[in-house]
């Protein structure tokens, strides 16, 4: 938006978006990404007997596994999302967030939540809920934080005039869902509901985190950034409605698919399987919408790096949901449940979809936030390829490993046959993970040189656009 085309009373970018807090959130996010990947590396080395730090309590792979997942979810993804929301919501609603002071308070409070989670887990105080290992005494603070986030962002959304864009439907719903999901998952199985019913709730929690916190924020951001970068509108408004309402209805019904063949009542398990397949149909409409949007502008995937990150992530999203609709069936589950197939699936979605999207948004926004082009376009490309190829190799290797493990177990051979047989896949995974990690190191180095104001011959980067 230049002054030549903006309306006379339109708020200025600087009044709407607090760029400093966006940068702060992104930097915090990258810090936790590093921590999480180091934890992942530790576990990966342990499994292939290459861990040089064995027998040290505070470096126990079991505890670091929980730090790995929580640092990604609450450290990297949550912080990145909050940074993106501070950019997107004021620009979409043409209203600033409720209070900048509150924004900084929330930032500080959230880092306290994440860091104390990490320290608590390190000291052996994890809570026994998958993806909810945040120690019980931190849960109230996290819930208060989520409430404040909702309040801070709902203020501009309620004040916005005119029809609401699809991104805002997703964001609004995400604020409600994230709070409810976090409360349900962290409080009910621990304090109120034991056993199998608690397991049903735990299943709902695990999937609602993915489907009702991460997914709506991620897709909301895609609906926001893709039309801006492609300079084209989303292809179909109708499909946007189908996508949002389909997700809203079917996603919450999926949760029990994490615990198939447990003593949870069978009719509920069938229901979860059917709901999961239904979500895949809904997802397909969203993918069709986005690919129809880029139809005719396909070259953008080559020239426009953020678009490449976004559309790669969307391909992986389609793949992961297609895989999900197949692997959720009881036939597949009999073989692959408990195996590395599921671990591969989780990495495909958490890194291959959402992390790629957020790294793409950072690739787009950092030049604007820092006021200069990337130091090196070549390093941006290295970042993309190391991340994507590394992730895909990890996914493919673990998926295959899962099939082998399932058959080893079913064949009633002794257990060590399955762990020994997994070694080649686990070794491959170490190198895939190292490639992904190297990609992020390249990114951080590029960011550092950009921040320092260095330019290189390769600085044919993304030109910043000032609003």
């Amino acid at each position, binding site marked *: 938006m230049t002054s030549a085309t903006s309306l006379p009373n339109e708020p200025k970018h600087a009044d709407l978006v607090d760029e400093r807090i966006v940068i702060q959130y992104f930097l915090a996010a990258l810090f936790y990404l590093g921590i999480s990947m180091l934890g992942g590396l530790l576990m990966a080395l342990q499994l292939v007997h290459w*861990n040089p730090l064995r027998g040290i309590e505070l470096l126990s792979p079991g505890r670091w596994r929980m730090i790995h997942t929580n640092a990604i979810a609450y450290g990297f993804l949550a912080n990145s999302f909050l940074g993106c929301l501070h950019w997107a919501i004021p620009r979409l609603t043409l209203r600033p967030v409720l209070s900048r002071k509150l924004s900084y308070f929330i930032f500080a409070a959230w880092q306290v939540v994440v860091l104390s989670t990490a320290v608590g887990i390190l000291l052996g105080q994890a809570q*026994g809920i998958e993806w909810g290992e945040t120690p019980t005494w931190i849960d109230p603070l996290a819930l208060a934080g989520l409430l404040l986030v909702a309040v801070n962002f709902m203020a501009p959304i309620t004040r916005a005039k005119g029809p609401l864009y699809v991104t805002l439907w997703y964001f609004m719903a995400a604020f409600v869902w994230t709070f409810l999901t976090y409360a349900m998952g962290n409080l009910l199985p621990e304090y109120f509901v034991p056993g199998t019913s608690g397991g049903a709730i735990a299943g709902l929690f695990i999937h609602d985190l993915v489907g009702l916190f991460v997914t709506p924020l991620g897709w909301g951001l895609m609906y926001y950034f893709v039309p801006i970068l492609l300079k084209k509108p989303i292809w179909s408004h109708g499909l946007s409605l189908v996508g949002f309402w389909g997700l809203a209805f079917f996603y919450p019904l999926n949760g029990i698919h994490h615990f198939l063949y447990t*003593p949870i009542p069978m009719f509920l398990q069938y229901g979860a399987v059917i709901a999961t397949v239904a979500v895949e149909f809904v997802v397909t409409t969203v993918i069709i919408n986005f690919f129809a949007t880029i139809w005719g502008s396909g070259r953008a995937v080559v020239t426009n790096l953020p678009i490449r990150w976004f559309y790669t992530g969307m391909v992986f999203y389609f793949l992961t949901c297609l895989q999900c609709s197949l692997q959720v069936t009881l036939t597949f589950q*009999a073989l692959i449940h408990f195996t590395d197939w599921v671990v591969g699936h989780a990495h495909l979605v958490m890194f291959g979809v959402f992390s790629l999207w957020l790294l793409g948004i950072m690739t787009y926004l950092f030049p604007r936030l820092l006021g200069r082009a990337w130091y090196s376009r070549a390093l941006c490309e290295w970042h993309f390829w190391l991340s994507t190829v590394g992730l895909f190799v990890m996914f493919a290797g673990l998926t295959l490993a899962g099939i082998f493990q*399932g058959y080893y177990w079913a064949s009633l051979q002794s257990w060590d046959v399955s*762990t020994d047989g997994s070694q080649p896949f686990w070794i491959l995974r170490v190198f895939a993970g190292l490639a992904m990690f190297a990609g992020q190191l390249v990114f951080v180095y590029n960011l550092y040189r950009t921040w320092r104001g260095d330019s290189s011959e390769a600085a044919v980067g993304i030109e910043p656009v000032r609003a």
Partner: protein
Amino acid sequence: MFESRAGVLLVGGLGFFAFAFLSNAVVPILMYQHLPEKEVAELPNANLMYEFEDLSRRFPESFAKHYGQPSQEKCAEALELGRKIYIGEGCWHCHSQFIRPVSNESRRWGPVSHTKEYQNALQRPVMFGTRRVGPDLCREGGRRSNDWHAVHFHRPASVSTGSPMPEYPWFFEGDPSKPNERGLAIMTYVQWLGSWLESYPYYEDYQPLPTLQENGP
């Protein structure tokens, strides 16, 4: 409604979430509400007490220091601490605790899991688990001696060749013959798993495949 704030927040946000919660969480809660939930104090059974007393004989100094006499109350105390350790160390991320009716699991480990096995205070939250790097543990009690568990926790690869399980020397004062309070507790917890079954212990039936082939049926 479909594009309005109220519609999105109330119908999509609250309404559909509530519908899923009612149908997927409240329904099983209501279905199982008649099942009694056991307190920890009620959990030590004869099989577990046998193992607990065995711990007091094998590791007399440690046991006397932390638990004194092997009573039911002390056993319940050890169970609670053992479970806290099981969660805190992330054991539940590599070991599961439910046997499925597929994939020959009941031949390998024992009876398929039943809801009433999870109706106790030590399954708040439930320890179903979602990954098996190591074997399922819900029928582990009584399969192996306390000595085996002591050495295994201290350094798993020394008894389980090629095991990728991490080492837990902080459960011991130096070597496997000296478990500390945490070591005794986690061993008690593992020996509890499955000890409530009538068919306990289940180790006689399962033999890994090569042995079956060598020795015949």
